[in-house]
């Protein structure tokens, strides 16, 4: 098996500070991968190492079977779009895009044809005579993209390409970029700290924290099966409950015994159990739906907040042992069960959605 981009055991130090630790990663040809993580976690550092802009301290990078670990930028094969776009301010849009095509032995007419093609591709054919400063942010972003793919590189690197734009444009461009990537089939690595962006665009997401990779997986894997508390917490929203593991697959929360995913944890160990608000199922108070007897809890509804398509409710109760839960209930469920502040309620916590992590370790992996 050989993937298009193979990163092995990459480390990067800035003086005494370790920005990347033990990073290994494979990206398949044609894949769209997002680096996602909080600010300062090393996403840009990793991207710049791949591009050769800031060399890793050690570790190797292979692209298309070729060891590029120490090659100068010009001998690598990638196109890049920076957060600032780095468009040449004194050149027209046309000349910006043509910059990489000139002096490569291509005849003028062919360059002009290619520029037109690229301008059509990004939908800015009518702007070719303008200067970058005369375009909007979103348009500049697309020009930078067109310039980066002009030479048909094997790898496209994007560093927070959308972060300088306002929300509406951002959503629109997300689709455009994704569509373009699919059309060209170019292997793409994008850095972002916006999880929505990553979830909606990426084939696979690399979640990073403090210079290490926390988890690699498809958007659904990352969301549904977080492999660390950090990932569970960072992606989407989640409840965290302190509990103790009593037996494999079984833990005590206050006075209640619950079943959940506890792979690799030892009994007696303090743990944190997570469940997403939308995974909590409401039932009429005191009801006993078939097949769910171990995951039922009696709770009281605290404040409720209307968030458009659902109600976010705070749940408390003796069964929770002093902890509280946030649950998202559909409008339908709220009406059916006539939920209101102070109402009693039985909730079901499905075993497959209760995921346990060791307590105490901030970023400890499970299993």
């Amino acid at each position, binding site marked *: 098996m050989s993937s298009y981009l193979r990163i092995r055991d990459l480390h990067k130090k800035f003086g005494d500070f370790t920005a990347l630790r033990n990073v290994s990663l494979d990206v398949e040809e044609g894949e769209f991968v997002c680096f996602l993580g909080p600010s300062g976690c090393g996403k840009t550092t990793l991207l710049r190492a791949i*591009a050769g802009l800031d060399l*890793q301290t050690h570790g190797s990078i292979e692209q298309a079977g070729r060891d590029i670990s120490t090659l*100068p930028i*010009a001998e690598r094969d990638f196109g890049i779009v920076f957060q600032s776009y*780095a468009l040449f301010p004194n050149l027209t849009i046309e000349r910006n895009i043509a910059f*990489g095509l000139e002096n490569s032995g291509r005849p003028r007419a062919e360059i002009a044809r290619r520029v037109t093609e690229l301008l059509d591709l990004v939908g800015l054919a009518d702007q070719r005579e303008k200067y970058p400063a005369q375009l909007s942010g979103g348009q500049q972003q697309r020009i930078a993209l067109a310039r980066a793919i002009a030479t048909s*590189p094997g790898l496209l690197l994007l560093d927070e390409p959308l972060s300088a734009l306002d929300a509406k444009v951002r959503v629109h461009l997300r689709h455009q970029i994704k569509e373009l990537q699919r059309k060209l089939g170019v292997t793409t690595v994008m850095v972002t700290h916006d999880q929505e962006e990553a979830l909606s665009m990426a084939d696979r997401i690399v979640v990073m924290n403090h210079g290490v990779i926390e988890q*690699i997986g498809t958007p659904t894997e990352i969301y549904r099966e977080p492999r660390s508390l950090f990932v569970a917490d960072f992606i989407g929203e989640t409840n965290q409950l302190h509990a103790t593991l009593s037996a494999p697959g079984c833990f005590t929360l206050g006075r209640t015994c619950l079943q959940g995913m506890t792979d690799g944890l030892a009994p007696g160990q303090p743990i944190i159990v997570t469940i997403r608000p939308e995974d909590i199922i409401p039932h009429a108070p005191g009801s006993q739906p078939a097949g769910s007897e171990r995951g039922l809890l009696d709770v009281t509804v605290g404040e409720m907040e209307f968030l458009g398509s659902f109600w976010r409710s705070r749940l408390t109760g003796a069964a929770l042992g002093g902890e509280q839960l946030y649950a998202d209930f559909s409008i339908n469920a709220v009406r059916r069960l006539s939920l209101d502040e102070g109402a009693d309620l039985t909730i079901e916590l499905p075993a497959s959605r209760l995921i346990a992590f060791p307590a105490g370790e901030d970023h400890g992996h499970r299993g």
Partner: protein
Amino acid sequence: MATAAEEALPKGRPAKARPVRPKLGRDDLIMRAFMVVIALYLVVALALPLYAMLSKSFSTFRFDLTAYEFQVSDEQGSFAVPPVSAAALNEELQAVPPENLATNGDGRLPATSFFPDFSFRSPVMYRIRATGDDASYLIGSERFAGSRWQEVDSNDFRRVMLRPVRDIGLANYATYFSTPSLFRSVENSLIISVISTVITVLLAFGFAYALNRSCMPFKGVFRLIAMAPILVPSLLPGIALVYLFGNQGMLKAFLLGESIYGPIGIVIGSVFFTFPHAMIIITTALAISDARLYEAAECLKASRWKTFWTVTVPGARYGLISAAFVVFNLVITDFGLPKVIGGQFNMLAVDIYKQVIGQQNFEMGAVVSVVLLFPAVLAFTVDRIVQKRQVAALSARSVPYQPKPKPRFDALAFVYCSLIAVFILGLLGVCQFAALIKFWPYDLSLSLKNYAFDLMDGGGWDSYYNSIRMAFLTAIFGTLVVFIGAYMVEKTRGFESGRSLFQLLAMLPMAIPGMVLGLAYIFFFNDPRNPLNALYGTLAILVVCTVTHFYTVSHLTAMTALKQMDREFESVAASLKQPFYKLFRVVTVPVCLPTILDISIYLFVNAMTTVSAVVFLYSPTTTLASVAVLNMDDAGDIAPAAAMGMMIFYTNAGARILHLIVSKGVLRRTQAWRFR
């Protein structure tokens, strides 16, 4: 899933991992090569000469008489008498008193001194040899050393000269600090510089305050007038002061019997030529102060006076400190002005000149140079630290202050600025007037006879043309070197140590006074063993010296412009497989063109006016206008000196206007992208 691979690897840092070293691409190599070449330029044009000067200042020379032996023949030419050492002869004869054994690097002691009854017609033969390791002697112009006897007849013995040996030590410094006439200059220089600094900064602050905070009319004109002193050599105000307050001055009575030749003249002239420097710095500092603070003060009903002391002055403090140190540095290192109007009042920079040109005592000149380096380096360092702070303060977002009309304050500001303008224009006007009249103060009719430079000392009209040629070459060559150097140091990837070294070299020139640089050039380039010796006495060395002298400000200007360019342009170009020089040509230079033009006019104007460094380096074929002003003044041709000084002024003014027109044109043609 890829994490499988991750887990298969051992955790933590594997023992075998070795730091990777980048393979250098073609661009990296070319950029480093350029950087190294320009760094070498700075080493040769700055570091090595300074080193030569330092080592000179620690060198003393004396004749070591114990290291020579003579043997004298009888009239038949046979050497019957045993050899005798020069020391023994001297003991016997007291021919050379001990204090005369100390000399300088060029010292020569005739061997005949030890033979009172020597006659060059005598048939007696002489033998000489050097017994000490370092000792040497000349016969004619040929140098001999070692213990082999050289035999000469008495005619040639006339031409035998003992050469001194060199000792390394602090003896020169000891001499300096124990010679009150030399040492007093330190005090003089410090006092004059402090007084001039206080006066200039206060005056410039008032002027800048009026420009920034009042609504008086003609602000642009005032600003222009305040900048005029930059266009003339620093000694020109000295000449004007001679006409006004000199022995036959029109306003001599105003001095109440004091002489203008001395501290008074130096201070007034220094205020004149440093005023624009202080004004620019303080204006910038005031311009960035935050209007919101003033609104707050107004809301708090603070009085004007209180607002001034609690908001304005603290806000401009970095500018004031920076201006003070810049002015201090300019005054203490200036040579032209105290030379013209200092009279018997000695200043450090003039001492260097007197030691070197007047007494040919190069070692002592080097010592004074080192002494002068101390305050200059100190002032430079403080200024750099303060400038850094100011830049930090500048990056904070602030709202510029918009003055509102206040009739009484505006009128006051107008009167104040007018007085300063009269002072500046007055001194320039006096020079122009003096240049155009026949014979001060007896015949006040107009004539152009003072422009017949060819009839005077100083190089004539040729020196003017030389100056223009030198200024053009400096502007072109200097801008090229400075901008390329700054580009390489800013955009080269990696190579941290090399880049910091380059930055250090580029900052150094500002700390080196012109006189010191010029003298260092003599020591370095005039050394016959130096392969670059051929440069000595050419226009090229003047260009090199001037470029180096004004390197730092140009370098900082270029760096500021380059830092504003997106750091990633080079990365983008490299990822598109385009060489950096294409980017440089197509993007960097066009975008930075206004800055490039600014650097070249800065170099041009300074090359026209500089005196201090080049005064040691010009030759009869490369006399310069600014030096001609000095020399004509020295020879008593004060009116022609004034005329030449005004020629420099008009040339620089013309160059500036041309620069303005070209800049505007260039902006319009190539910088269309700047405007939406």
